[in-house]
């Protein structure tokens, strides 16, 4: 089941060759390590860019994260919660 979450999260990310790459995030008092970024795209909200990432974690869980370039916040937008 893919669920819409829309919760603020803390993310560790690195800037690499002009790209932003998340590699770890904390949600629900758990830390998830990102094994693979499976998709990245962007859109706009007002004048600001929003960067979207679909990721797989070490446990093969699927999440979508969103970075807002205006306030530098990260949102967990979707999660695949079933095994």
């Amino acid at each position, binding site marked *: 089941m893919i669920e*819409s979450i829309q919760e603020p999260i803390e993310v560790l990310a690195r800037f690499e060759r002009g790209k932003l790459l998340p590699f770890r995030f904390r949600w629900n008092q758990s830390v998830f390590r990102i094994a693979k970024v499976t998709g990245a795209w962007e*859109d706009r*909200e007002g004048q600001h860019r929003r960067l979207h990432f679909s990721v797989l974690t070490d446990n093969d869980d699927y999440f979508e994260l969103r970075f807002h370039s205006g306030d530098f916040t990260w949102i967990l937008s979707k999660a*695949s919660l079933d095994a």
Partner: protein
Amino acid sequence: MRYAIHVDMDAYFASIEQLANPHWRGKPVIVGGAPGTRSAVASASYEARAFGVRAGMPTHEAQRLCPQGIFVPGNSSHYVHTAVRLYRLLERFSPRVEPASIDEAYVEVVTEDDVRPLGRRIMASIEAELQLTASLGISDSKYLAKVCSAFDKPRGLTLLHRAEVPEKLWPRPLQVLFGVGEKTAARLHALGCTTVGDVAHLPVEALEREFGIVGVSLHDLASGRDRWRVVTPSESADARSIGHEHTLEEDVYERSVVEALLCGLAERVARRARRAEMAGRRLVLKLRDPRFFTITHGRVLPRAVDTAEEIFATARLLLEETRFWERGVRLVGLSLQLLVGTGAARQLRFDFAAGAEKKSPVVDRIRSKYGEHAIGLARSLEAGERPRRGSEFPTFRPPEVGRDG
């Protein structure tokens, strides 16, 4: 020889979703609205197509055919982002690239060599860089390139020269011809045509009597005659249109509500036109009733317009002339056409619309700073809460998703 290469992405939206979420690979993924709503299927993976699911089909029908399907609401920004990457990739092979839609494009190349290796290199680049697959149609006719890209999907590459039309196109059914749907096919059947070849062999006068100028065009297409050129975005200002349409949750019979919806659409069309530095000389209103009867009604304007006020004023007149709200409205759309660039000097106005022209850039700046819905015409509020960007599928949750492993 000059060739048109038609690049048609395979199950584009569904493939992007499968790429983003590996758990969905190999499974029937259906991109569109939630099954409980009145939306249609935008794209179906090949696994879903095996159950008979097709793009354009109502989602409730798709759910009936494929109850185990994974219904995904879709993510337009992801698809647009990928399409732009596709166009940039294609421009490495030729400067003459025409984006035909979000999942297809034409590439014009000139070569005296075999063109197929170039086609295979394009396919390989798409697979390597976008991790998606495409089918290519190549021809010395743009129209034939589009037709033959569908012959061998997915991951097909088909070369069809005009000289091969009698052998390879004429035996095919009428629906292969561009613009021939069920209704036109029925009228062609009445003329004794069942294949493309039958249309080609019919006297052009008979087709012209039945279909007018469209009949002449049908005859040309069936015969492989096509005076084509690939139109790059910088050349296409006059050919394009800027439009928006909205399918309603419930049928609307109140004129004031339809007008309010038109007002919101007028704002969006105007905003996009100004962003593109375009103004349009024709406005077309599209309406669909609860029985899916659809009309378009348009008007050529005395001057090109790009303000919400002017577009809305014309849209109201068009609506008034149709009195369509009496039948019930399930879809409403507006399209600004005959676009011209607004970079050149504009004719001055001496009536109320001149005020709108001054206002619009200010409104645009407010929207750029605070978001698309920060400001708008009060008239549009009557349609209910202003839809938020990306809210077409706000609460839908896809059904149970299987997991690899």
